[in-house]
C-alpha cells in the first residue's frame, strides 16, 4: 500500500477543505483496493462519521445520511415497513461484519468486482484507460448483458443501489440533487468514470420519497452460493396491482431500472411479456447469455409472488 495522509472530517464543509482528496467511508472496498494496488490515494478524508442519521421527511419519506452504516439502514423499522426491498437488498450484500462498517454513500461508490479491474497485472480500461478490456474475450460469465461498451463490460456490484433505483431515490451531494438512476454511468468511451460525480463532490444523503407501492416490495438475488457472493442477477420489485417498480442488478455498469417492463405491465401485458420486452435489449457476451433467461424468470417470479 502506498503512503497516504489521513484526516477525519468534522463537518461536510471541513471534508471539502482538502482539494483532490479521496473520501473514506467504511473502507470495506477502498482499503482493499489500496492493498491490491488498484487505488493509491495520497490524501484520505474520513467522512464515515458524518451524516449518520436517518430522518423523516415531510410527507412520509426518509433522508438517509451518507454515513449510515448498511446494517443500521437494513434494521431500521421504517425502512422495513415502507421499503422492505431496500432492507432485504442491503442484507443480501456482503457479510454482517462488512455491513457494520460499510456506509450508505460508500456502498453507492464501491467499484466493480470485475477480476481484471482488481488485478493490476492485467490490462483494464477502467483502471488504466486505453490498455484494453481482456474481459470481453476472457472471463465474463458474471459481467454485463445490458448497456456495455467495447471498452468495458463491468457490472456495478451494489445490491442497495438496485433497490434505491427502483424506489426513485434522490442522491444529495455537496453540490446538487440527483436521481440515483442518474448517479451511475454506462461505460461508453470513458469507463474509468463510474458516476457523474465531479472531483471534490461528496454524497451527503440519500432521500427516499414516499412511495405507496414500495410497501409491497421485495428483493431477489441469484448467486453462485447461498450467501456472501455477488449477484449473477438480482431484482428489486414493487407491485400492488395498481403500480409497479422494477430494477435489475448484476446485469449492467449501473443499476438497471426496467422502465420497458414497467410500461408493459401498465399496458396490460403479462409478467413474462414484460420481462421479455425488457431483456430484448440485452446483448449477451459469449459466456453470459444465461443471464438473459435468468433475469427474465427472476422478474416473473418476483412479480408473481408480490401479486399473490
Amino acid at each position: 500500500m502506498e503512503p497516504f495522509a489521513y484526516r477525519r472530517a468534522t463537518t461536510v464543509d471541513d471534508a471539502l477543505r482538502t482539494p483532490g482528496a479521496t473520501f473514506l467511508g467504511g473502507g470495506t472496498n477502498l482499503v482493499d483496493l489500496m492493498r491490491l494496488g488498484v487505488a493509491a490515494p495520497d490524501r484520505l478524508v474520513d467522512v464515515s462519521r458524518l451524516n449518520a442519521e436517518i430522518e423523516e421527511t415531510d410527507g412520509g419519506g426518509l433522508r438517509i445520511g451518507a454515513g449510515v452504516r448498511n446494517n443500521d439502514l437494513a434494521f431500521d423499522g421504517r425502512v422495513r415497513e415502507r421499503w422492505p426491498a431496500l432492507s432485504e437488498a442491503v442484507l443480501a450484500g456482503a457479510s454482517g461484519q462488512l455491513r457494520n462498517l460499510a456506509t450508505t454513500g460508500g456502498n453507492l461508490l464501491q467499484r466493480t468486482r470485475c477480476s481484471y479491474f482488481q488485478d493490476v497485472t492485467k490490462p483494464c480500461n477502467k483502471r488504466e484507460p486505453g490498455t484494453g478490456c481482456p474481459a470481453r474475450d476472457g472471463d465474463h460469465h458474471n459481467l454485463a448483458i445490458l448497456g456495455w461498451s467495447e471498452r468495458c463490460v463491468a457490472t456495478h456490484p451494489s445490491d442497495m443501489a438496485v433497490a434505491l433505483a427502483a424506489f426513485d431515490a434522490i442522491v444529495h451531494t455537496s453540490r446538487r440533487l440527483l436521481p440515483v438512476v442518474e448517479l451511475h454511468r454506462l461505460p461508453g468511451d470513458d469507463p474509468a468514470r463510474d458516476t457523474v460525480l465531479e472531483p471534490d463532490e461528496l454524497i451527503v444523503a440519500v432521500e427516499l420519497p414516499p412511495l405507496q407501492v414500495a410497501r409491497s416490495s421485495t428483493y431477489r438475488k441469484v448467486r453462485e452460493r447461498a450467501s456472501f457472493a455477488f449477484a449473477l442477477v438480482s431484482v428489486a420489485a414493487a407491485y400492488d396491482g395498481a403500480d409497479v417498480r422494477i430494477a435489475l442488478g448484476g446485469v449492467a455498469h449501473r443499476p438497471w431500472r426496467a422502465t420497458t417492463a414497467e410500461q408493459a405491465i401498465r399496458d396490460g401485458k403479462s409478467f413474462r411479456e414484460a420481462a421479455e420486452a425488457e431483456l430484448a435489449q440485452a446483448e449477451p457476451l459469449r459466456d453470459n447469455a444465461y443471464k438473459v433467461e435468468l433475469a427474465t424468470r427472476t422478474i416473473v417470479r418476483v412479480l408473481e409472488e408480490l401479486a399473490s
Partner: protein
Amino acid sequence: MAELQPVALTVNGTRHELVLDTRSSLLDLLRERLGLTGSKKGCDHGQCGACTVLLDGRRANACLVLTVAADGCDVVTVEGLAHPLQDAFVERDAFQCGYCTPGQLCSAVGMLEEAERAGDAVDDAYVRERMSGNICRCGAYPNIVAAIADV
C-alpha cells in the same frame, strides 16, 4: 515517505496511545504491536472473517479497518471476550483446527446483538445466513450453528 499519526484506542479495557503509520490496519496493530494474536489474518481482504473483532460493540473485519480510522474506538478481541458462547463452542466441539474460531466467536456475539436490535427470531437458517462472513475450512459449520443455538 510513511505518514505517521498519533492514535488512541481502548483494547480489551486497556487504553493504548501510539504513533502509527497511517497504513496500519487494526488487525496488524493488534497482532504485531499489541501481541494479541487471537485475531487471525486469513485472507486480509474481508472475505474470510478470521479477523473479526467487536468495534464499539459491533462485529467488524479488523483487516479492512485502518487503525487511524478507529481512533477513539473501543475494541474487544477474542482475548477480551467473556461470553457463554465460548463454553457452548467447547461443549459442541464447534471447531477442528481452531483457526477461524476467534473470528467465529466475535462474529456470533455481534450477530446475536444485531438480531436482538432488529427484533429477529434466530433459527438455524438465520444463523447460517448471518454468519456467512466467517469461513471454516474444516467445515465445522453444523456444530458452530448448534453452539450458537445453545445460547
